[in-house]
């Protein structure tokens, strides 16, 4: 392990990115992308593209549950609360950037802010398979952090959107106070655009992603390594292969959306690359400071960097229907996702290796790694 890490850090980041591109997961993604670009009729059967996310969530849930049983989860609370805090701060930060610098309207700004504040389970799966490839372990409780983080930034964004709509109603009330007849009808229309927060909360907690993820964590914790043996061929042996197939599908969908990237504008494309980089690297630093391992810090950073593109449209289309889905789906899936899995993941791995001081040459963050 020590020797392997030493070898790894000797490769420069560029070399690691190059090596990462030549993994089956990334190559299948690129294949899907190419297939969509040349208008091939390649298409995943519907049932499989609905099944694979459930399988991936179950596999990462079981993996997390098993790890938690082996290592305990006493140390889980602080990283989890930190992750929630960071996610909220990042969401607010995204909103300010989008609204002030990007000149997006309130609805698009909040929808995009929460898409980038939220986490991506697919990205998380790719991260796990990347670490598996490097033979580096990560803390199992990060899967539980993934489950808890899922609704956080949506709830904040919807709450703030509601607040903004309430303000609009108030100002409309003022301007309409002379004209009593039409008052009620117009107010009713504005009122309709407010979303029931508790409804959204209930929906996202009882949604299939959270149920499968939390359920599998509990099952993994309950069965332990011995119980897992009987199903490990499906949930461990097939894991990377299943991701490769799923990424073929993601590549196709992303490829079909590449034309839309011109429509989302240069600002959003730059935002979709800089924001994950910034959030991810902060995540790696914070996680290292909290005492997470090399792999754990990479996964923590990935949680902060990833954008949601499966859960986000389902939640936001109901909660903030005024926002344009083409903006947040295209930027999250078409730009951020490929960037995260191809380029940012190796970068974060290198940063994490440096701050964990595995090569012993850079002492800048030495004190972080004292008890590792």
């Amino acid at each position, binding site marked *: 392990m020590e020797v392997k890490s030493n070898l790894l850090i000797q490769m420069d980041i560029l070399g690691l990115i190059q090596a990462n591109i030549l993994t089956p997961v990334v190559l299948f993604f690129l294949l899907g992308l190419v297939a969509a670009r040349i208008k091939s009729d390649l298409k995943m059967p*519907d049932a499989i593209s609905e099944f694979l996310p459930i399988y991936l969530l179950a596999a990462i849930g079981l993996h997390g549950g098993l790890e938690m049983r082996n290592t305990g989860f006493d140390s889980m609370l602080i990283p989890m609360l930190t992750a929630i805090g960071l996610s909220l701060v990042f969401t607010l930060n995204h909103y300010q950037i989008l609204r002030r610098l990007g000149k997006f309207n309130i609805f698009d700004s909040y929808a995009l802010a929460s898409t980038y504040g939220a986490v991506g389970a697919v990205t998380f799966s790719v991260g796990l398979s990347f670490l598996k490839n490097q033979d580096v372990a990560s803390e199992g409780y990060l899967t539980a952090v993934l489950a808890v983080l899922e609704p956080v930034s949506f709830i904040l964004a919807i709450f703030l959107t509601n607040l903004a709509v309430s303000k609009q109603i108030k100002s409309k009330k003022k301007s309409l106070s002379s004209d009593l007849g039409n008052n009620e009808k117009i107010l009713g*229309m504005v009122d309709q655009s407010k979303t029931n927060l508790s409804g959204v909360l209930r929906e996202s907690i009882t949604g299939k992603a959270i149920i499968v993820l939390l359920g599998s964590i509990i099952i993994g914790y309950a069965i332990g390594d011995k119980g897992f043996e009987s199903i490990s061929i499906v949930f461990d042996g097939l894991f990377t292969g299943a991701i490769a197939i799923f990424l073929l599908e993601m590549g196709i969908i992303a490829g079909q959306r590449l034309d839309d990237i011109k429509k989302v504008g240069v600002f959003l494309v730059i935002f979709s690359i800089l924001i994950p980089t910034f959030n991810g690297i902060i995540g790696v630093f914070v996680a290292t400071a909290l005492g997470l391992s090399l792999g754990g810090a990479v996964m923590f950073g990935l949680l902060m960097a990833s954008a949601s593109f499966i859960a986000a*449209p*389902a939640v936001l*289309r*109901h909660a903030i229907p*005024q926002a344009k889905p083409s903006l947040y*789906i295209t930027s999250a899936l078409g730009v951020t996702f490929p960037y995260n899995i191809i380029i940012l993941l190796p970068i974060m791995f290198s940063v994490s290796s440096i701050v964990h001081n595995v090569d012993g040459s850079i002492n800048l963050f030495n004190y972080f790694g004292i008890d590792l």
Partner: protein
Amino acid sequence: MKLFDVKLLTVTCEILAQKAILEILSKHGITGYTSYEVEGNGSKGIRGHGFKNEKNIKIEIVSTEEKLKDVAEEIARYLFSDFAIILYFSDVQVIRSEKFI
């Protein structure tokens, strides 16, 4: 056989608008409808492939003209601006008119 004249309202929309439409139906006391997944092309581009959430759906509702006009008005007012939706009316005849009141 005696046939009764009623109206058929057909709504084609993105799948994520379905819930809102069903809420409007139940608000107007309409409990019966048929829905199915569809694909197609329109002003928002080719729809129907990609994620499940981006599929289109077609909802058919048979009822009296009066009720369906209220429903259509509400859909137009609240959903037209934010969702991909088209809707149209057609004349149909039914045998058991009491089922469609």
